[in-house]
Each structure stands twice: as structure tokens, then as C-alpha cells.
């Protein structure tokens, strides 16, 4: 049960397990955002769940194509903001009214008016930190080790490469069938990713990229 929970949350982060014979998954390259988008949609229809699309920039409509709902970041941010607001309020009230009340210019020990700026700033600050922290958490970042980095071609994912990755841990995963499937939906090339388990951040440095993309 708990394992399943872990698994699903990891999946949502795009972290998959390799199967028994060390295969992490299949990495297919596509020509452009459009083909990738359609491929992702097809994969989704085909019932795959453990897969992800990789692109140098976010592609509009991909979430829908992959059948992913809305991001949950917002709720965390609200929590963070509430924390900041209440902390600021408490800090100003407790220090000036309870812990050490001093007569300052004959003004009330604590009043809302002069406290607003600090309340506001801390609300923003905590919200922002909450947002970023949540983003890292939901994305499982930082993720030093990722078998995809073993792929030579994959280095172009941050340049102009568009990839679809189906993980071996997917229920329907079958190396041959899935390869076929990928070819069918228009992959330019399909590469088997082995989980070599070399704990090296992002694999070895890429070869010179100055040369035109080779595949």
C-alpha cells in the first residue's frame, strides 16, 4: 500500500524504476513539438502511464495530451502565505504588546496600521519560498542521477531535441512491442536506456555539439 503511494508519487515526479534486466526504458526522439505532442497523446491513449515527454521548452497542450491534471503548487503557496502573515502578526504583537511593551510616541503598544508593511512583506516572502520549495519537491529535484543521461542524443533535449520516454516500469512495457509502437507514432529513432547504476551526475560530459546533430 505504502509502496504503491511512493511509486505513484515518484511517477508524478517522472522517477521510474528499471526492470529486472536493467532496462530503464525506451527513449524515442521526435522531430518537433508538434510530433512530440501527438506522440504523447497516442501514448496516453495506448494506456501507458509511466512515460514522459522531454523538450527544451514547455509545449502548449502537452499536459492535456499526457492526461496530467493541474499542478498542486498553488495550495502549498497559500499555506506558505498564511504562515508568513500569521508569523508577522504574532511577532509584532507579541514583541511590542506582550514581551516588552514600551511607550513609543504615545502610540498604542500594538496597532494594525503600522504593522501592515511587515505583514505584507513576510506574506510574500513565505509564499515565494513555499512555491519554489514545492516546485522542487513535486519535481523530485534536485535529481543528480537519471539513467536518461546515459543517452548521447538526450543531451540535445535542452537544445532542440524532442523526446518521449516510456519507462520499463510501466505495466504494459514490452521492449519489442513498445519499440514498434514508438516507431508507429513517428519516432525518428528509438534508444534503449540501460540503468548502469553509475552514480554520476548526468553521466559523462557530452561530445562536442558544434557538429550538426547526428542521428
Amino acid at each position, binding site marked *: 500500500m505504502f509502496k504503491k503511494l511512493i511509486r505513484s508519487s515518484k511517477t508524478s515526479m517522472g522517477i521510474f524504476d528499471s526492470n529486472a534486466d536493467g532496462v530503464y526504458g525506451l527513449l524515442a526522439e521526435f522531430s518537433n513539438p508538434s510530433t512530440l505532442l501527438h506522440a504523447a497523446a497516442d501514448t496516453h491513449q495506448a494506456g501507458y502511464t509511466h512515460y514522459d515527454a522531454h523538450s527544451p521548452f514547455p509545449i502548449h497542450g502537452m499536459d492535456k495530451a499526457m492526461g496530467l491534471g493541474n499542478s498542486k503548487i498553488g495550495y502549498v503557496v497559500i499555506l506558505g502565505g498564511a504562515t508568513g502573515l500569521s508569523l508577522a502578526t504574532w511577532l509584532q504583537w507579541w514583541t511590542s504588546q506582550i514581551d516588552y*511593551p*514600551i*511607550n*513609543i*510616541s*504615545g*502610540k*498604542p*503598544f500594538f*496597532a494594525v496600521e503600522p504593522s501592515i508593511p511587515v505583514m505584507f512583506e513576510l506574506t510574500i516572502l513565505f509564499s515565494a519560498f513555499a512555491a519554489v520549495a514545492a516546485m522542487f519537491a513535486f519535481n523530485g529535484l534536485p535529481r543528480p542521477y537519471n539513467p536518461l543521461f546515459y543517452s548521447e542524443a538526450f543531451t540535445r533535449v535542452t537544445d532542440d531535441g524532442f523526446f518521449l520516454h516510456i519507462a520499463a516500469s510501466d505495466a504494459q512495457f514490452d521492449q519489442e512491442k513498445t519499440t514498434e509502437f514508438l516507431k508507429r507514432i513517428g519516432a525518428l529513432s528509438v534508444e534503449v536506456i540501460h540503468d548502469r547504476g553509475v552514480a554520476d551526475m548526468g553521466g559523462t560530459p557530452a561530445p562536442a555539439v558544434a557538429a550538426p546533430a547526428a542521428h
Partner: protein
Amino acid sequence: MIELPVIDAASPAVGDPKQHFWRSLQDLRQDPHFKRLGHEEFMPGASDAPGGSSRRHFLQLMGASMALAGLTGCRRPVELTLPYSRKPEEIIPGIPLFYATAMPFRGVLSGLLVQSFEGRPTKVEGNPDHPVSQGASGLFEQASVLNLYDPDRSKHVLHDGNEASWGDFVAFCQGFLAQAATRKVAVLCEQTSSPTLNALRGRLAQVYPQLRWVTYAAEGDDPSRMGMQEAFGMALRPSYRFESAEVIVSLDADFLSPVDRNFVANTRGYAASRRMTSPQDDISRLYVVESTYTVTGGTADNRLRLRSSQIPAFAAALAVRLGVEGVQGVGAEFIDHPYVQAMERDLLRAGSNGVVLAGETQPASVHALCMAINKRLSSIGNTVFLYETNEEVKPAQAEQLQQLVFDMSNGSVDALLMIGVNPVYDMPGEIDFAGALQRVPTTIHLGTHQDETAAASGWHIPLTHYLEAWGDGRAYDGTLSVIQPLIAPLHDGKSEIELLHTFATGLDVSGYDLVREQWRTVLQGDFEMAWKKVIHDGFLPNSGFAAVDPALRPVSGASPYTIGGDEIEVVFRLDNKVLAGSFSNNAWCQELPDPATKVVWDNVALMSPATADRLGLEVPYDKGMHYADVVEIAAAGGAVQLPIWILPGHADNSVTVTLGYGRQIVSHRPERITNFFDTDDKTDIYGKGAVATGVGVNVTSLRTPGAMRIATGATVRKVSSGYLVATTQDHGYMEGRPFYRMATVDTYREDPGFAADAIKTLPGGEPWTDYPALWQERHPTTEPALKDNPYHAYQWGMVIDLNTCTGCNACVVACQSENNIQVVGKDQVSRGRELSWLRMDRYFVSEAGQEANPKMVMQPVMCMHCENAPCESVCPVAATVHSPDGTNQMIYNRCIGTRYCANNCPYKVRRFNFYNWSKTLPLEVHMVQNPNVTVRSRGVMEKCSFCIQRVRQANIRTSLENRAIQDGEVKTACQQACPAGAIVFGNINDPNSHVSKARQDNRRYEMLAELSTKPRTSYLGRVMNPNPELEAATA
């Protein structure tokens, strides 16, 4: 960077036949600074406790406190110092003791009560029981305590410039006594009223039959005394009772200035005649005729600016109009002057309640004339009292001096004693005293400093400060006092009487014994009992002079001066801050703003705008700095160059200069030299030799023995420009802002609320008083956190009565002394960084068309202790907060120095420590500081605290005695000093307290109250009583 001296580094290596060894180049070169190191076994400070005073000083002080423990008991010699572990029973560390004593001031004594912490005198107050001071004091009394700790005081007996010992001098005196009968001895002595000294004078005359005694005052004869001699044929001393005066006519008499010998009594009396509790009260009317703008002129109802050399004629005209017999055909040019006519009418109306007095600048004849007028008004015995001083009628000082110098230079003086005087510095230009001095075989100088005269004398003996040695004397009214020391001499100094006695007898007897011996003849009954009482009280009751009313001699009223229309006169006055030089090495006085000009650290030639225009002179104001033209003033005596200052209301064609500057005092302190990245050498005012050395110009060479006060026919010529003059107030006009509120008596009677009404409404017509008070609900003082605080019962407030305040500066110095306010020096003042907590704002007010003779008004401004203090809410660290007893407090050790509070203070009373001023103070000066007040360090804000330390002491005392603080039990330093009683401080929660009553006065107003700051300090608007006829005439 300086090598440690070899043990005998001092012993001169020159003239040593054999090869000598030297440790360093300074040693070889006989570098004076290096030689000085030889005197002291260790580097300065090497044997001292860090920061505090040295171990040796500490023991001396302990010795003193031991000696004074009984106070009444005999004064033990210093050798018997004891560690503090055996504590004298009176002394509780931290609790000050107060001792009654008296300060010699221009030949009279002012009775004092001096505060002492563990044997360390720190603060001077007036003696409340003393008939003259009655608890008040002037700025010189307040500042005198710093003279005690003056780091440049002479520390060694010198013989021909080399260090000698007192023993050497005693031996010398014994040798000198051998042929006493044939010795021609002359004594040049400062003015003194000491019976002991006079007795010793007689004794000296017996020993030296050919003794010649000359009393010498730098400023010249006391014209008042000479005038009395002229008028009555005897040395009487006039004392004025202004409290019963209706009309006062002052002819160049600055009787409200602390320079006046009877300043405290004058101010008290005058204030009494001006105090109003209701519009119906009558107040006196003060006419002032003067050349420069003085404090007295500022308080005048009608002021006429007139060259001092014309005032005798003016006085004569007045005398003629009043029909003083024997005065005819003089003062023709003023006989129809509107002021003369107005004065005549007013004086005749006032009768015996009128009084006319002349000032120090006026010749004796004018003083005599004034007495004749007072006689005519029969005000003698009512507003004027003549004291019988029983002093001999003495000839003019000038004649004696000329004779003495003549004899000196032709070698017919064997020995000259100069006691407490500095003739080489302040002798008028015509007399070559220094030259004559060289012709005298034996010259002995007793002085506080190694000054000009010390350098020219064979023997120099350090003179003790009055807080160091026993002495006695008479107050202005003749009341006898014993001067009781609070501390053993810090340096091996001797008092006048000790020196004279040794010179007369060759014996070394302590001043204590001499004074007691003298007083045995004074006190009746059981001597020890009476003596103890005198010491304890500080004076001998009912020992004052008798008042007499002798017959008047005929007076002519002829003026000694004939002055052309635009002929320029130069008037020499004692400086408002340093007198004739006796206070010029006192940093407090140097940095005290002159009442009229606000100039510090300089003496300037004052002249009127018109005269400056005529002479093509100016004082341009550029980027916050005043750059004055420098002129050469030439008169009979000689010529000097000094910067000018343009003073509105000054008489045309008259130039006022002050004595006491341009001193040359030898200091043995090392010059402060710091690395290029360290500014201490620039900011340390004690770092470049003596404080007074190089400040201002000595103007005495302009004078001649005949013209000590006024020199006519002077020429003024511009020689250069761009001399930086530092002032504490750049802007003299009020810009029509109602800070200082005044009205005439008539206006006051029509509109008693004139002061409050000056700001009636907020823009928009809404009365600001109806405005909802800020933060009224949930006000902190209504919350338990503060309400339950014991301090909350007292709510402190202050009221300053501008009617009686004259702006004499006593409060300013008192505040400086009480609150350890540091001195920052000319450069920093010119940058606007002075630290004074209490500033005396001086504004010129003039009706349209009267710009040439504006009114000069004075307003003391310190922290207003606003209940809604703007400074508090902007401090990010709560370093300035409100106390439960309603004062605005500054927490120095919490302050981080954002200076936001100063920006947000509408009254600009907050002062910032831009540098660490206390860091560079000499050890001696550390000892003057009040242990109950934090010495502020660099980077913190400071300001008036309502003397919270005094309030807290009272809180503690009363809570121990389990009683409430009575009204008047707590006095702020400024209030305590004020001779006019213009400052009232107290608990405004108590409806019967003086301050609460003063706040009921309908003249009350608060500055900038429309900002809703709710100041705890209020002012009472000033009411003036000008002569309506004159107003009509001049307008």
C-alpha cells in the same frame, strides 16, 4: 613610535665634556618633547588605569576626600593618603557630597556649593544660603570647575625656565630676606578681597619698608569705584535693587551679563521687576544706551545704539534735563534727543524708583554723574545702595603702572612679585612691560599657567585653583567667606597667601593655618565652633558692608571725549566667555556661543552693517560657512589684525573688540600625531598644545594706559578676506514663524492669550486644539504596563518664562557641566556638529523700516519632551522611548545611530556624536565628568534628558525614605543655575506645583504645538514695556 626614555633622559647631555651616550636622535637633539618624557618616569598613561584617572591622581583624590572627611577638622597633608578600603564615614561611593566654598571673581567672592564624588569636584552650584548667590550662579562659576582639571596648568616650580622645587624657592626667599630692609620690592597683585591677603600685605610692608603694592586688573581701573571716589570722596560700592525699580536707565551698563561682578543679584532683582502673574501686574521699564548689542540691550524695552564715547555727553544731557545741580552747558548735542526727553519724564515720574547706572566702559565721571542723578531722584537707599567698603581711596591704576614700569626699567626695583596676574600679556601696548621686566633682578610669577609672564619671569610658582587651596574674601555685598578646598592640589601649586607668607617670612606655612590665624581676629566667641559654622555654611552671616548715604561732591559732567561724526571708536570689553583671559584655556568657554554673535573659538571686531558698508567690509556666507574679512585696526597704542563680524543693532562708527584671546600658553602635553587614515589628530581639541594658544588675537596693544576702555580716532583697513568664523547659528531671522512670542504690556492687557493665539487654527480654519489628539484611545500611559509603574505618579514638565530670561548662558554651561557634554572644536562647529543640549536661540526682530536697530531676543531651546515625540516612532531599535514619568529618554547603549530621530525632530535639539570625543580627552579632563551621566561614545545620538539622573536619585531617595518627592526637590541643572528663576521644572500631576501653576499662566504656549507633538516644555510669552511716546517718535 616613541622610544621609551632612558632613566635619566632628562639630564642634559650638552655641556658634558666627556663623550656622552645617547639613546636616540631626539635625545641627542635635546628634543623638548623627548626631554619632557624624562620628567615623567613613564610614558603618559603608562602607569594609568585604562580610561580612568591615574593611580596617582586616584590616591591624591582619596587623600583629599580623607582630609575633607571631617571637613571641619584640620587639613591633613597629602602624604597621609589611605587606600579606600578604610573608607571615611561620610563617603558612600556614588553618593556625592556637597561642600560650601566660594570662588574669587574679579575681586569679589561668589558663594558656592560644590558637588564632590569620592573627593572629586565635578559640579558647581550657587550656595542657597549665601545672601548674594542664593543658589544661583553664572557661567563663570559653572565653568570654573573645568579650570581645575585644565591639563595645561602649570605643574612645576620653574627657576629661569628650569624645573625647580618649592624647597628651592623657600630657600631663595630666606636668602632674599637677608637684606630685606634695603630691598626695593614691588608687588603686582590681582584684585582681591581677601582679609588674610591684606593682612599679609601689611606684614610684607613691615619686612620690606620700601614695598610698593599695585593692584592690577587687565581691563583697567574699576570705573565704578573711581566714580564713587569722585562723587563721594571715598571708595564706595554701589549695589542696585532692581526689584524695586520702575524705570532703569543703563548707560552702556551690561549689568545682566555674567561679566558683571554682581551679575547674580542684578539678574535676580531685574527678573523680579519683570515677573508677571497676571496682565494687571506692572513691570519695570528698561532703557539701554549702548554701542554693542549686549544681553542687557537684548532685554531692554527701549534701546538706543550710540557710540560709547558719546554716552558721557548723553548722560550729561540727561543730568541737565533732570536738573542735577552743578551740571550746566554740557551734552548740548543730546539735550533734545527723544530718548533723553522720554527718560527725563519717566525718571521724574518714577522718582526714587528710578535708577540710572553706567557701565564699565564709561569713565569715572559718568559714574559720578549717574550717582548725582540717583541722588537727584533720591533713589539712593531705595534702588541704589552704597556700601562702605573701608578700602583706601586709591589713585588710578594707570599712573601707578607707568611709575612702576619706569622704575623697573631704570633698575630701581629689586624684586617684582606678580601674583595671579599676566601683565606681559595684557599690559597696554604703550607700556613695554616685558622689556622693563628684564631689568628687574628678581621676578617672581605666581600663575595658573606657564603663560607669557611665566616665560619672562625668573621664578614661576604654580598657582592653586580655588578648589585646591584655603583662602577667604568678601562677596560683592561684603559678606565674608572662607574658601574651602575640596581636593589636594593636583600639581605642586601654592596659593597667593602661601606664597606671600613665604616671601615675607621665609617659612613654609600652610594656607589653612594662615586663614585660621587671620580669622581668629574675625570670629568672636568660641573660635572652633564659629569656624566650623563658617566652613559649613560657606560664609559668615551679617558680615556684609554697611550702606551709607554720604554727601555728594559737585560733579561737572564734562565728557572726556570729543568725537567727530564718522570718527571710529574702538571699545574694549571683557569677553563674555573668557573675560580678560582667565578662562581662555577653558574649552567650555571657548565653545560657548557668544550671546549676541553666536561666534565660538574666536574674537571678532564687531561693527554695524552701515559701518561695514562704509568701510567696504563683508562677511560672506557660503555653503554654511562664514568667511569674514580681516581688518587692521590702528589706534594710539598700535595696530592689530582681526576678523570682523557684522552685528545688527551695533552703533555706527564703533568697533567692539574683546580681551582675552591670542594667548601663548606653554603646554607639556605631546602633540597628537596619528596615522594618515586616522582623524583623531584633526578632531582632538587638546591635541595641539594648550587650548587657548592660537585662538583669536590679543587686542591689548591697541590700548594705552589712558585709554583702556575706549580708543577714539581709530582707523580700520581691510587687509584680507576669507577668514573662517565658526558660529552655532547661521540664520538669525525667524522667517515670520511664531517661535518666540512677545507683546507690549498694552497688547497683553487687551489680549491676554496673545501667545497661544499666535497659532490659532490649522490651515482650513479648524482650531488645532479641537483636533482629535493623536492615539488618544489605547494610549500606553492608560495601560497597566505603564500605569502600574511607580514612576508614573510623577509627570515631569518645564516652563520657561521668556519675560525674565535674559540669555546669560548660565544654563548652557550648567548643562554642559552636568551632562558631560563634549567640546568639538572650531572646525566641527563650523560644520554644524556642536553637541550642546541646550542652545540659546538668538533672533533679530525688527519692524518695517527699523532694520537698522532690531530687537535681539533670546530663547533657550532644549528637548521639548513631546508626549507624541516624533523622534520615538521612527527609531528602528527603540533607542529613544518614553518613560513612565513622561520624559523622552535616549538609551545610548541601544542606539545604533541611524540619525532618523534627529531628522524627525521639529525642534532640532538632537545631537549626534560624529566622532568619539571622549576617547581623546586628557586624563585630567576625564575627572570633571559626572559619574551619574553616561559618557557618550561615537555614533550615538544624545539630547537633553530633563536631567533624568537627578530625577532618579530623587526617586531612589524618596522611596528609601518612603515619602513623595516634594515640589522643587528635583531641579534640572539649567534651572538650578538660572539667576533669573526663568526655568521652572516639576511634576505637572501635582496641581499645586510651581510648574503646574506656571502652566496656568495665560502667556503660556508651546513651540510648534500645531504639529500635535504635545511638548512637555512650555514657554511664557514675553511682555515688553516700551515707552509709547518713543515708539511713536522712532516709528
